[in-house]
C-alpha cells in the first residue's frame, strides 16, 4: 500500500474520530452554550406547557416585561404533556400542566415543585346547526357520547334532559386532544368519577384512549376542528370558548343544578376541593353540598425545579403571577382569582425554590 494513501486514510480517521468525540451525546461534563436551564441570562425566563393557561400566561408575558424587573418571559403552549417533558429534561425554566405529576413523572422530575397558579372551567362546546346554546347535559351522557354509545344529537338521552328543545338528528362527532393534555386529564377525571362505564372502559389520562372521534392538537386545534364540523363536540378551557364566541353546554353537578361555567361556579368548586397527598387539589365532581359548583373545574400548575440557577428571577415572576397584579388578568378571560388560602400556601412553596 503506498505511503500517500496510508497517510490520507490515517488523517481521515483522525478527523472523524475528533468530530464524533465533540458531537457525541450523553456528555455530562461541559455544555458549551448557555441553555435555558443552564444559568444563562437572568433577564430571560423560558417556560412551556399547558394550552389551558396559555391565554393568561401570554397576558403576563406582555405585562411583566414592562415592569421594573424587565424580565422577558417566553412561553410555548405545547400542551401539558410537553411541558412536563421539557421541565423534566430541564430544557426550560418552568413547565405548566393542568394535570398533577404522576408518581412516575414526579420521580423522573427529580425534586420538582408543583404550584397551582390559576384555575378554570373545562367547558363542553359544540357546533350543531339548528341547536340552541346552553343545552343541558350530564356526565354519564357526555361519557356515552365520547364512547360512541350516543351517536346523534336527537338521542332520547339528550332529549330527556332538554324537554321542549328542538334537537336536529345530526351525527355526533366527538373531538378530543391527540397530544398530551392536562385538559384531557381534568375531563376524563370527571367522567371517571361520574360514569362507571367510562371508568371501566377508558379511564383517566393526559392522553386517554378515546374509542371514537377525531383527534386534534392543542386547545386551539380542537376548537378549530369543532368549528369545521357540523355536529362536533369537544372539551376545552373556557377562555377559548369566550374568545371564539362558541356555544357551550350547561353541565349537571352533584346537586342536580346546571351552573353557568364562569368565575362564580369555579370558585364554588374551589371552596370544596379535595387535597391530594402530592400537593395537588382536585376540583372535579364537587359534592352535592356545593349547590352552585361547576362540576368540571381544574387548577393548573406551574412546575419548577426545587433548585434552579435562575431561582431569584423565577421566584419574582411567580410571586407576580399569583399576586394581585398577575391574577387581575384572569377574570376577563374566565379564570377566577386564586383563593387567598391557595395564595398563602403558594407563597410557602415558592420560598422553597433555591439555587
Amino acid at each position, binding site marked *: 500500500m*503506498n*505511503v*500517500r*494513501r496510508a*497517510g*490520507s*486514510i*490515517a*488523517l*481521515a*480517521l483522525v*478527523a*472523524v474520530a475528533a*468530530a*464524533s468525540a465533540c458531537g457525541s*451525546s450523553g456528555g455530562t461534563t461541559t455544555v458549551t452554550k448557555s441553555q435555558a436551564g443552564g444559568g444563562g441570562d437572568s433577564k430571560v425566563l423560558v417556560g412551556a406547557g399547558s394550552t389551558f393557561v396559555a391565554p393568561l400566561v401570554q397576558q403576563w408575558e406582555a405585562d411583566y416585561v414592562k415592569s421594573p424587573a424587565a424580565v422577558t418571559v417566553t412561553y410555548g403552549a*405545547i*400542551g*401539558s*404533556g*410537553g*411541558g*412536563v*417533558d421539557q421541565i423534566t429534561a430541564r430544557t426550560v425554566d418552568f413547565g405548566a400542566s393542568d394535570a398533577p405529576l404522576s408518581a*412516575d413523572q414526579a420521580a*423522573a422530575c427529580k425534586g420538582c415543585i408543583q404550584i397551582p397558579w390559576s384555575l378554570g372551567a373545562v367547558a363542553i362546546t359544540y357546533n350543531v346547526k339548528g341547536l340552541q346554546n346552553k343545552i343541558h347535559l350530564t356526565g354519564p351522557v357526555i361519557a356515552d357520547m365520547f364512547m360512541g354509545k350516543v351517536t346523534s344529537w336527537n338521542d332520547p338521552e339528550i332529549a330527556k334532559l332538554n324537554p321542549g328543545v328542538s334537537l336536529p338528528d345530526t*351525527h355526533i*362527532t366527538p373531538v378530543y386532544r*391527540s*397530544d*398530551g393534555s392536562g385538559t384531557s386529564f381534568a375531563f376524563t377525571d370527571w367522567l371517571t368519577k361520574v360514569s362507571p362505564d367510562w371508568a371501566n372502559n*377508558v*379511564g*383517566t*389520562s*393526559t*392522553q*386517554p*384512549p*378515546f*374509542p*371514537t*372521534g*377525531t*383527534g*386534534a*392538537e392543542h386547545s386551539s386545534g380542537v376548537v*378549530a*376542528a369543532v368549528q*369545521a*364540523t357540523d355536529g362536533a363536540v369537544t372539551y376545552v378551557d373556557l377562555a377559548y370558548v369566550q374568545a371564539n364566541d362558541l356555544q357551550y353546554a350547561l353541565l349537571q353537578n352533584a346537586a342536580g343544578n346546571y351552573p353557568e361555567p364562569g368565575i362564580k361556579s369555579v370558585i364554588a368548586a374551589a371552596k370544596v376541593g379535595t387535597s391530594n397527598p402530592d400537593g395537588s387539589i382536585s376540583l372535579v365532581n364537587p359534592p352535592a353540598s356545593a349547590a352552585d359548583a361547576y362540576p368540571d373545574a381544574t387548577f393548573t400548575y406551574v412546575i419548577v425545579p426545587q433548585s434552579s440557577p435562575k431561582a431569584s428571577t423565577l421566584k419574582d415572576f411567580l410571586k407576580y403571577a399569583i399576586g394581585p397584579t398577575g391574577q387581575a388578568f384572569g377574570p376577563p378571560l374566565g379564570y377566577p382569582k386564586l383563593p387567598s388560602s391557595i395564595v398563602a400556601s403558594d407563597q410557602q412553596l415558592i420560598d422553597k425554590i433555591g439555587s
Partner: protein
Amino acid sequence: MTTETPTSHIPLSARRRWRLGDVLLQGIAGAAALGLAALMVLLVVEVVGQAHAALSEFGLGFLHTSVWNTVKDTYGALDLIFGTLVTAAVALLIAVPLAIAIGLFLSELAPRALRTPVGTMVELLAAIPSVVLGLWGILVLGPFLNEHVEPFMIAHLGFVPFLDGFPSPVGLLPACLILTLMVVPIVASISRELFTSVPGELKQGALALGATRWEMVRGVAMPQVSGGLVAAVMLGFGRAVGEAIAVTQVIGGSLTRPDSIYAPADTMASRLAAQYAGTATSLQKSSLAYLAVILLVISLLTNVAAQVIVRRIQRRLGHR
C-alpha cells in the same frame, strides 16, 4: 455515471507523486465520506436506541396488535400500519396512472413549446413545502370535500364497503388526495426521463411499421421502461409512507381504526409527529420511536430496491 475516475488514463508514475496537498485533500474528502458512513450508522443506532424499551417490551407483536392505551400503558401499531398502507395505496392508485400519462405527455405528445413550461409546473408541484399543502388541506380541501364531495359519494357510492359513512373535514380522503399531489411529480419526472431514454430507432421503427403513437407507447416504450417505472413507484411509495406533516394536519389523529374512507384515522408518521413531543409515559415515547424504526426500515428497503433497479437499467443502457 462515467465508468472510471477522470484521471485513470494518466500514467501511474505521474499519479503517484507524493504531495502534502494531495494527502490533505484526500484526507479531508475521505473524512467526509467516512462521516457519511458514520452518520448512517449513528442514525440507525440512535433511533433504535430510543425505541429500545418498546422493542424489548413488545417485540414483533407490536406490528399486529391493535391498541394504543396510555392508561394501561400498552401499545400496538396495527391501526397505524393500516392507515399508512391505505393512504399510500390510494395515493399510488390515483397518482401512478396520472404521472405516467404526464411523463408521456412531456416526452412524446406535447408540442416542444409546451414541454418546458408544463414540465416546470409539474416539478414546482414537488417543491411546494408539505406544511403549505397541509394548510391548504385543512382550510380549503377538507371543507370542500366535507360539504360537496363526501355527501355525494355517500349518496351514490355508499353501497361499496368502506365508502359509506359520515362526511368529515378531516380523515383518510383528504390525506390520500394530498399524498397524491406529492407523489405525482416524483413519478412523473422519472417517467419522463425514462420515456425520453427509449432509443429513437425503436420508437421510429414501430411508427414506420404503421403503429399509432399510443400503440408504439404501449407495445415498445412501456416494456422498455417497465423496470424503471417500478423503481419510480417504489420511490413514490416511500414518499407517501414517510410524509408526516401534511398528513397529520388533515387526517384527524384518531386513536382507532376508521370504518370508512371519510372517517378520521392516523398513520405511523402522523402519530409520531402528533405525540412524540409530549407523552404520558416513557413506554409511550419509546413506542413512538418504534414507529420511527418501522418507517426507517421501510424507507431503507424501498430506496435500496429502487436504486438496485436503477443501477441495472443504467448498466443496460450503458452497454448500448
